[in-house]
């Protein structure tokens, strides 16, 4: 089993399987790339409405192809054109409801999602009653079935993904400004409306080509999860897009491979679970923004605070609390009997001096002190310029005498 899984992953399990794997990987990269911009433009859940809104288009596309006698209705290009058309109508409906009625955007998204999907299921139930319709295989659009893709279909998916990736690269700068500073883009005279439309068109393309693989219920995950996971690793848009692309590609690659290995395993579900696992790992271990990094930062802060307070107690001739004493002993500031060592006394004196200077600083320069992030947390000489520290020391002496 493991050997077979490895042969699928290393593209040695036959031409068809390999092509499917590459196609779905490209799809993951493309969706993640456009998803990054969609997320930053705070439109994460519009993609969900778009995904569901494609279903009536799939049904209408099938009926059109069926009437024309093309492949018994299962003609992917026509199905995708239909999906794109009603998906676009879905976006327009959300915008119309939001802009022209008193209903807020979330209600608009929910309306479009459920009503379009409802109409889609009605069409599908009609198609199932047609002669040969029960075998139309349209249900694979709901949950996704990458193992059942034909080569021609994979080519369409791969080509569409490449188009999405290339256009994201080509318009990277424009999309970036659109996400972060739309007013600037308008002031610069950029065609903001057209760029926005392009972004939505790419979203629509990614959703349409993802339907057959991931399924329309879960396609939103491929757009949203990789960028959200990437966000934990970097603050830079270029890095975020890149990492999101890697996560998306990896999800598609592993998901499609698992779906090829295990019968009855819905590709969409596995792809989304893979993306979810990458998200969980990012949430926990990412440096800076991850949970562990945050906990370590918190711990280090408390540790430093306890050490400082302990030294202050030593300087004032009080007894440090047990926790503080433990830390001081670890650092060699206290001996086994709990008496301060020579180094400990020196450190206590330095801390007491720092504390006094910091307090003086807060009293004499309250605004600057408030703005200082490291106030009272590090030796004052490390943060403030030498002449200012000397001035504070002079004032301290004056006040003391």
């Amino acid at each position, binding site marked *: 089993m493991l050997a077979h899984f490895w042969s699928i992953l290393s593209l040695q399990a036959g031409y068809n399987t390999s092509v499917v794997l590459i196609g779905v990987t490209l799809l993951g990269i493309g969706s993640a790339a456009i998803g990054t911009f969609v997320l930053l433009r705070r439109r994460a859940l519009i993609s969900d409405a778009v995904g569901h809104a494609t279903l009536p288009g799939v049904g209408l596309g099938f009926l059109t192809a069926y009437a024309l006698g093309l492949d018994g209705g299962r003609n992917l290009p026509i199905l995708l054109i239909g999906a794109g058309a009603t998906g676009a109508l879905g976006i327009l409906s959300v915008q119309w409801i939001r802009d022209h009625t008193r*209903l807020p955007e979330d209600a608009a998204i929910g309306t479009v999602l*459920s009503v379009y999907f409802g109409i889609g299921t*009605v069409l599908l139930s009609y198609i199932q009653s047609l002669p040969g319709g029960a075998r139309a295989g349209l249900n694979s659009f709901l*949950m996704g079935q990458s193992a059942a893709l034909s080569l021609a279909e994979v080519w369409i998916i791969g080509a569409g993904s490449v188009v999405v990736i290339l256009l994201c690269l080509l318009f990277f700068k424009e999309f970036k400004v659109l996400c972060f500073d739309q007013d600037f883009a308008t002031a610069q005279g950029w065609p903001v409306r057209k760029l926005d439309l392009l972004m939505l068109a790419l979203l629509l393309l990614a959703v349409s080509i993802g339907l057959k693989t991931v399924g329309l219920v879960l396609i939103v995950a491929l757009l949203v*999860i990789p960028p959200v996971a990437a*966000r934990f690793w970097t603050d830079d848009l270029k890095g975020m897009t890149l990492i999101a692309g890697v996560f998306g590609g990896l999800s598609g690659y592993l998901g499609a491979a698992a779906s090829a290995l295990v019968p009855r395993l819905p590709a969409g579900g*596995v792809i989304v679970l893979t993306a*979810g696992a990458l998200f969980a790992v990012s949430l926990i271990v990412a440096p800076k923004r991850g949970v562990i990094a945050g906990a370590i930062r918190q711990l280090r802060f408390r540790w430093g605070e306890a050490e400082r307070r302990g030294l202050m107690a030593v300087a004032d001739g009080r007894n440090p609390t047990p926790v503080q004493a433990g830390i001081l002993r670890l650092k060699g500031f206290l001996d086994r009997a709990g008496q301060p060592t020579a180094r400990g006394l020196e450190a206590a004196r330095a801390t007491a001096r720092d504390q006094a200077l910091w307090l003086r600083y807060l009293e004499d320069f309250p605004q600057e002190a408030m703005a200082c992030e490291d106030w009272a947390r590090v030796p004052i000489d490390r943060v403030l310029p030498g002449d200012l520290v000397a001035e504070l020391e002079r004032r301290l002496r004056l006040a003391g005498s």
Partner: protein
Amino acid sequence: MEITLADFLTIDLPAMLVGTLAGIPCALLGTFLVLRRQALIGDALSHVVLPGIVAGFMISGSIATLPMMAGALAASVIAVLLIEAIRRLGRLETGAAMGVVFTVMFAAGVVMLEQGVGTRVDLDAQHALYGAVELTYWRGPTDWASLLDPAIWAALPHSITVLAAVALLTVALVLLFYKELKITTFDPALATSLGIRASWVNAGLILMVAVAAFEAVGSILVIAMFICPAATARMLTDRLSRQLVLSVVFAILSGILGYVFAAFVPLWIGAANSLTAAGMIAAVGGVFQLLAMLFAPRYGVVARALSRRGEIPA
């Protein structure tokens, strides 16, 4: 094709009851969700309950209501906690956190279904999406008079009893906590100063939404009934009490008309088979909302365009 009275009472009446009884609690709770801008919580929870239902089934080994509802509730609670945790830990906007949680949990449910139970029982992903409004049969009544016989009511399908109980419970809770719900919806600050815990009311509301979302009629019908009747009523009135009543009225109308369009109209116009009722009920709910958005007396698009023309004389 002629529909006999016995057929109607056995097949169509229970289906209509399922369609309308499922819609009533959704419409009531949806009114608050729409007003609080939490409309998508209903969407998210109706996806999230799937792994809970499947887990409840796998553990108990039966499709009895209680273990599956317990699973659904547990899954909803986990989802809400996860969304909140991810939002805080990752400093993400709610929409993104919600998108991550509900898709991953739904995906887990789909995989569990296909791998764990799909081959053993008639519980599959499609069922979870479409539900089975039309698969509820009431073996008993043969004519209107027989409805007066108490023995007939004992044969009432279990799912209808559950739906009716959930609907009654929701109506009772909304009436009981009407003041709290109203104040926390419109003025959270006032609620706090009056000593009403907004977060408790919110949690209670979400739990009720989860129970309503669990109903075995398919997530698509539930999402549509959370939003469309409430949004339709919102277009027509500014009073909360009136909005609640109107949303229930539209939910019932959608349930009945949706079923009629799905089951009877195709046969009347000569088609061989009927269509899916859940999808049609959602579609009818959407049509009501569209009509309200266009032609509502005060807030409709048409009325506002006309009044604007009246304000600025040419």
